[in-house]
């Protein structure tokens, strides 16, 4: 089993298969404890450039899919982060406060944004799989 076989590549960016994606470039991963971790895709961090500030949602906030859940600021611009599914914010990544560049370095790992207690796990089915998300990225580049 090679790592390569588990990933897709859209142009130069990496898109792992174990995640679901929103067309607005957030990823969502179901964890073993039933929570969902949210971050932004490799494609998104590349497009943003050097991330220098992340504004997180309030702990305990209940948000709907597509609702504003924070802001990621690169040197050049601010971009909204949207909740990919409905749920309550139960944890935010404390590391991004002091080291926002982690979003660039490890977007699918240490650079996660927040964790949700999902309202309905079937929301995840509405999101894009890696293949469909790769098409979204490719269409943006052309």
């Amino acid at each position: 089993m090679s790592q390569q076989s588990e990933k897709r590549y859209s142009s130069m960016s990496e898109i792992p298969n174990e995640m679901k994606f929103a067309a607005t470039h957030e990823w969502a991963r179901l964890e073993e404890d039933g929570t969902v971790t949210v971050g932004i895709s490799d494609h998104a961090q590349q497009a943003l450039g050097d991330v220098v500030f992340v504004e997180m949602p309030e702990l305990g906030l209940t948000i709907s899919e597509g609702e504003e859940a924070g802001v990621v600021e690169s040197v050049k611009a601010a971009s909204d982060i949207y909740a990919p599914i409905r749920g309550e914010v139960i944890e935010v990544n404390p590391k991004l406060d002091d080291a926002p560049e982690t979003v660039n370095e490890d977007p699918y790992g240490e650079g996660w944004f927040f964790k949700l207690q999902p309202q309905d796990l079937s929301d995840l089915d509405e999101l894009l799989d890696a293949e469909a998300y790769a098409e979204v990225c490719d269409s943006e580049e052309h």
Partner: protein
Amino acid sequence: MTEKTPLYESHLAAGGRMVDFAGWIMPVNYGSQIEEHTAVRTDAGMFDVSHMTIIDIEGPDAEDFLRSTIANDVANLVVNQALYSALLNEQGGILDDLIVYRLANSFRCVVNASTRQKVLAWFAKHAYTNMTFTHKPQIMLAVQGPNAILRLSEVPGGPKLSELKPFYAVAFGDWLIGRTGYTGEDGVEVMLPVEQGIKLWQQLRDAGVAPAGLGARDTLRLEAGLNLYGQDMDETTSPLVSNIGWTVAWNPPERVFIGRSALEAQRGNVGEKLVGLVLEDKGILRHDQKVITNAGDGIITSGTYSPSLEYSIGLARVPANATGECQVDIRGKMKKARLVRPPFVRKGKDLVAKKPL
């Protein structure tokens, strides 16, 4: 219609991420804007600025034309010396900012890319009889940073420029090299024929000069407290409210230039000023955010994260009496900030701490 500079292929080869800027497809970065910024502050970087417009003005009326058209005075220039000036409308509003070089038999103006058609039309409208404008396609490379002059001298047959004074230029074969820039660091801007420019770009890359994009150009100029036309100043703002009042040559008093009478009416009587802003809370200052000061509200004209200072800085137009602590409305939240006198960083040094407003 998007134009490409002659270095387009060179940018792609260097991994440039290309964006549309004022009708030109230009590199915004080559991977990391922060690394490019730091290269210029600590070593050497280079920018393709061939999208800027070079206008040569020749003929017996050229000097009188410029003396009556721009707010600074070219009469004060010796051959090969340059100045920075605003070009004003009758109301004293800024049509553009430009650099003018006095050369042996002509003047050379370098104006912004975004204002090219407007300035060419304005110049044509106010032209004198015995003079010509020529616009020759060239490459213009800004090589900037503490080691810029050294790296350029190490290029095979490259120029030795350590004696060249700031805001002076020297002809070097077909090249014109000015010790000027838009970064707050030492460096030069080289104007040269296309084929030679493509070669020089590659030679400088081989010498370790970092290609730097528009992103780094913006953070560097903002740290250096230098205005961006169309953002920090435009046709509705005069030099007196844009922190470039020093570029207006009031003497001799009999020199009439477009916008002079409007500026004289404003002089000593301005309601606003353009100042620096540092954010003391976390977050990033951006264009158009509201600033609440001790003398009323103002507006941020440019804001960014400062890679050198590692916090956010900006320029803001605020009431003339505003000082000290203020607040900025960032997405509905009030954040603590402080008014300061720009520049923020020059020659690699933090200038904020010792210069409160």
